[in-house]
């Protein structure tokens, strides 16, 4: 049975041993977290100001606020108590207390801001909300709290059609300096523009290696399309993926916690920014990725991670590739690189193992004359004209059986003189009908030597 992470195990095995009282104190305090991240030169949203008492509320300079901002409780939980406004209207909105004000001959209009859903929030609404935050109505354990104003992240064009009003963010779960799982969190109408899954936001699983989205979750149910639309959630490439992973590890190291959910947003101008840290990351991410988290955590437990770069690489290598498996499942075809190991079968029990170049430019599979001789493949069926690197020639055609990525294929192949070429065998498109080709793959080893920087002429 897959090792799914439950709440009991998360709390006892991962949260408790991974935190000190100090790290929890930092993470549960957003302003303190920001201060510590800023010291490490980690990008965070700007803070415009904060209010920690009724007195400060009455003395606050409202004109110093920009027309768009996010108002947050310092020790808030799960996105509660966050108010985001998009624009300002000066003296436009009739005050709710206008009868009283009119009686005293005062201005009955007051300043207002516009919320995500288009409704207006007046200054007195905002003051009321701040009073609620300061009273501790949104904080952990209902203790008195601080309200602060924060820069509103500017949404990337790419994400616009996928999210309702709010800003999507990327949750990366980090353990032992290694990113183990991540999801893109898309705000919906139901979640009122917030990216919290339990409020109704959509979580989209991400392939750890490439940063491409896979499947998704909404209210703990697996989905493939954005609810209420025909937009597929599969295959979205998250920009700056490598940087996002590194940023998440940096943040984890800055607060000295071993298990953490890092929320990163991408600003149109500033790039990836750390929005928030979460000591108790939610577990629905496992449904978004259709992958058990406990299994991954156990795999990276105790690994020595010497650098941030290495941590990101380990996470990518260990937990990537889900996408490929999925593509294979969906298409019923296997994904291969441009270079693959191949086994050729000859007369009797004779076999030859080598690397083949996958070549969609060639129609027919072609093998080197020396291999044909070695395997006693001498029964020439016919001759066919072929246009090779050496001009037009007639090549002998033989009956050939080979195995590529576990698939056994019987075909007609031509014999050519390939002694001076990098690859003994090329596989042509006639025999590639059961495969999909990923040209970014196949830079592996050839005869034990890395060919990534191969200086030899790349003849086929």
């Amino acid at each position, binding site marked *: *049975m*897959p090792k*799914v992470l*439950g*709440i*009991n*195990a998360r709390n*006892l*095995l991962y949260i408790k041993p991974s935190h000190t009282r100090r790290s929890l104190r930092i993470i549960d305090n957003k302003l303190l977290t920001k201060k510590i991240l800023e010291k490490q030169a980690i990008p965070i949203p700007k803070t415009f100001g904060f209010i920690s008492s009724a007195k400060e509320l009455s003395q606050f300079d409202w004109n110093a606020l920009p027309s768009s901002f996010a108002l947050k409780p310092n020790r808030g*939980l799960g996105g*509660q108590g966050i108010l985001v406004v998009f624009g300002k209207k000066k003296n436009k909105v009739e005050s709710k207390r206008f009868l009283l004000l009119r009686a005293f001959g005062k201005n009955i209009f007051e300043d207002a801001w516009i919320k995500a859903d288009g409704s207006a929030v007046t200054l007195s609404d905002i003051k*009321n909300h701040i009073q609620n935050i300061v*009273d501790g*109505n*949104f904080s952990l354990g*209902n203790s008195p709290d601080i309200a602060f104003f924060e820069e509103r992240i500017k949404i990337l064009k790419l994400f616009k059609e996928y999210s309702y009003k709010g800003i999507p963010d990327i949750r990366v779960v980090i353990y032992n300096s290694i990113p183990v799982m991540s999801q893109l969190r898309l705000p919906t109408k139901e979640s009122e523009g917030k990216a919290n899954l339990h409020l109704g936001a959509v979580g989209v699983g991400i392939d750890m290696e490439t940063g491409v989205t896979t499947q998704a979750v909404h209210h*703990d*149910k*697996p989905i493939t399309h954005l609810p209420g639309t025909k937009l597929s959630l599969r295959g979205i490439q998250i920009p700056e993926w490598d940087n996002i992973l590194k940023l998440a590890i940096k943040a984890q190291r800055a607060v000295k916690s071993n298990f953490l959910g890092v929320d990163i947003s991408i600003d149109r101008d500033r790039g990836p920014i750390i929005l928030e840290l979460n000591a108790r990351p939610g*577990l629905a991410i*496992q*449904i978004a990725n*259709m*992958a*058990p988290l406990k299994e991954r955590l156990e795999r990276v437990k105790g690994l020595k991670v010497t650098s941030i770069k290495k941590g990101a690489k380990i996470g990518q290598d260990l937990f990537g590739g889900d996408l490929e498996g999925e593509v294979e499942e969906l298409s019923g075809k296997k994904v291969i690189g441009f270079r693959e190991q191949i086994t050729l079968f000859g007369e009797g029990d004779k076999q030859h193992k080598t690397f083949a170049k996958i070549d969609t430019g060639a129609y027919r599979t072609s093998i080197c004359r020396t291999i044909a001789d070695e395997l006693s493949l001498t029964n020439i069926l016919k001759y066919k004209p072929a246009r090779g690197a050496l001009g037009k020639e007639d090549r002998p055609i033989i009956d050939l059986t080979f195995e590529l990525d576990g698939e056994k294929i019987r075909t007609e192949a031509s014999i050519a003189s390939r002694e001076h070429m990098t690859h003994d065998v090329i596989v042509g498109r006639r025999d590639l009908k059961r495969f999909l080709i990923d040209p970014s793959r196949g830079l592996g080893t050839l005869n034990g030597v890395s060919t990534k920087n191969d200086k030899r002429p790349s003849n086929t």
Partner: protein
Amino acid sequence: MIDFLTQNGIPQYATLWILMLPIAATVVVVSRQIIGIKGFGITMPVLFGFSFASTGLEMGIMIMLIVLLSGYLIRSLLNNVRLLYLPKTALVITGAAVTALAVSPLLPYSKEFQFPLAAFALVIFVLSLEQFYAFLSERGLKKTTAVTIETLALSIIVFLITTWELLQGLVIDHPILTILAVVATNLFLGKWTGLRLSEYIRFKDVIFK
């Protein structure tokens, strides 16, 4: 032990209820850690379960719902007036208490209804409103309703187990053994890292893919 307590003026039913307390708490812990029923902490389900024992199950649920609903209505009314949190909560409690008193003559009393304990049950329901509304203002109506239903279910389980005569007999006969069993169970549960029953349902798509 029970004999010693009885000889020194502590009635047997008092000892029984005090010993039932850790058992009731353990029942709540098992429901949370193994089954995954949420509920408002340990205190509320245990108090409710004990209250049901003094009022009878049906009457208890009826009173509880009346108190919660009247409290909710009063709070909604008060929301239109801007009031500080604590005075508002006190007003909600006042309103719920008055409503409970007003409807109490109409309730079909049964012989299970034991005064003065039943009056205390009412006090417990009314006082639970504070925690209930704190949750409501934080998490919203939908979530609160769900957790209230789960709390109610837990309370009923606590009620059924604590009023189970076989268990009551065991506790009275072997009080030390009871305590040891409770301690052992909780030590085990404290180290339990397995999936909760509710999580098998929540993650069924990942587990049984």
